[in-house]
């Protein structure tokens, strides 16, 4: 009888643990959806609606077709986004990258930008990622103040090299995609 009890308790505890974990995971997910994902979806939906319903879309299309439709234009975009003074300003919350990504997506959907440019474009609009967050990120890694002093310019200057380089790598890697 004692042995059986022990087995039952062990099984009960195990199942309870797993179910509890799954439930907590679901709770976290809904929390994230409401707090992080839905607000941005609302914002993005408004922008797409504005682009599709008004003439703004055509203006944007003419503007970014020359930049986002070919590798040279994308390289220019990536260099501009990686300029050490600009990159920390463009970084926060990746809002700029998300809005530009959405606009590019609309133009890809309308056939103004070829779909194989999607991969290099993903890197071209994003060399500034995290440039606004370097001191905080380093502090999370328990870096000394001297490291932060050196680390901020090091990352910013590194992006000037690796930003455009990422676009080239992505461009080469996009061969054979959607064609």
């Amino acid at each position, binding site marked *: 009888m004692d042995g059986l009890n022990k087995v039952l308790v062990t099984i009960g505890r195990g199942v309870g643990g797993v179910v509890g*974990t799954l439930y907590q*995971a*679901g709770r*976290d*997910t809904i929390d*994230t*959806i409401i707090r*992080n994902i839905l607000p*941005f*979806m*609302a914002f*993005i*939906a408004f922008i*797409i*609606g*504005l682009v*599709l*319903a*008004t003439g703004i879309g055509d203006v944007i299309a003419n503007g970014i077709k020359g930049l986002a439709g070919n590798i040279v234009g994308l390289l220019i975009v990536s260099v501009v986004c990686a300029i050490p003074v600009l990159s920390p300003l463009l970084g926060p*919350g*990746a809002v700029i*990258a*998300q*809005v*530009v*990504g959405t606009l*590019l*997506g*609309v133009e*890809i*959907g309308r056939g103004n930008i070829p*779909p194989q440019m*999607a*991969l290099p474009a*993903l*890197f071209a*609009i994003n060399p500034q*990622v995290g440039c606004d*967050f*370097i001191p*905080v990120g380093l502090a*999370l*890694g328990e*870096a*000394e103040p001297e490291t932060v002093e*050196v680390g901020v*310019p*090091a*990352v910013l*200057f*590194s*992006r000037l090299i*690796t930003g455009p*380089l*990422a676009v080239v*790598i*992505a461009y080469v*890697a996009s061969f054979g*995609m*959607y064609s």
Partner: protein
Amino acid sequence: MNLFASADTVAEPEGVWGAIAGGAEYFIGIFNQGGEVFFGLMGGILPTLVVLLTAVNALIRLIGPEKIETLGKKAAQPGLIWYPVRYMVLPFLAVFFLTNPMAYTMGRFLPERFKPAFYDSAVSYVHPITGLFPHANPGELFVYLGIAAGITQLGLGLGDLALRFLLVGLVVIFIRGIVTEWITARMIARKEAKA
């Protein structure tokens, strides 16, 4: 609307009033379009996202994210073979298990001279990973999803783009880590020479 236009003979508003009414319709039209897009996103992406996020969150909880700390300690070693570990494997696992922004806390296991490079490497991966694993950075999904929406609209599959984004991202963060580590070393040396 056109179906009823022929049966009903209500005159269209004219003149100044007509212009204002037309303007109002145009105004509402913008938000109707936006609402349609929002509904499309809610119906298209969100249900999958809810289930995927729940599954991965549960998996991470069951495995226990603290397991990768051992790897963090190993990655601190000098030597060429630890470069891919420090700037590819560790950032990937850190971003996957700890997500943005807690992933950067893995830097605490590394010596000071590697910390900026590790941060650079990890932060550059918070978007490439979202194509397949959106749980890692749920607040910034639209860098990928925005562009992906256009691909979907063309009727093409997303698997190809998501996978290539993930893999090219790994190559890019590796290069980024090496370049930033090199620049950091140069700057530390210059600072010490000055002092």
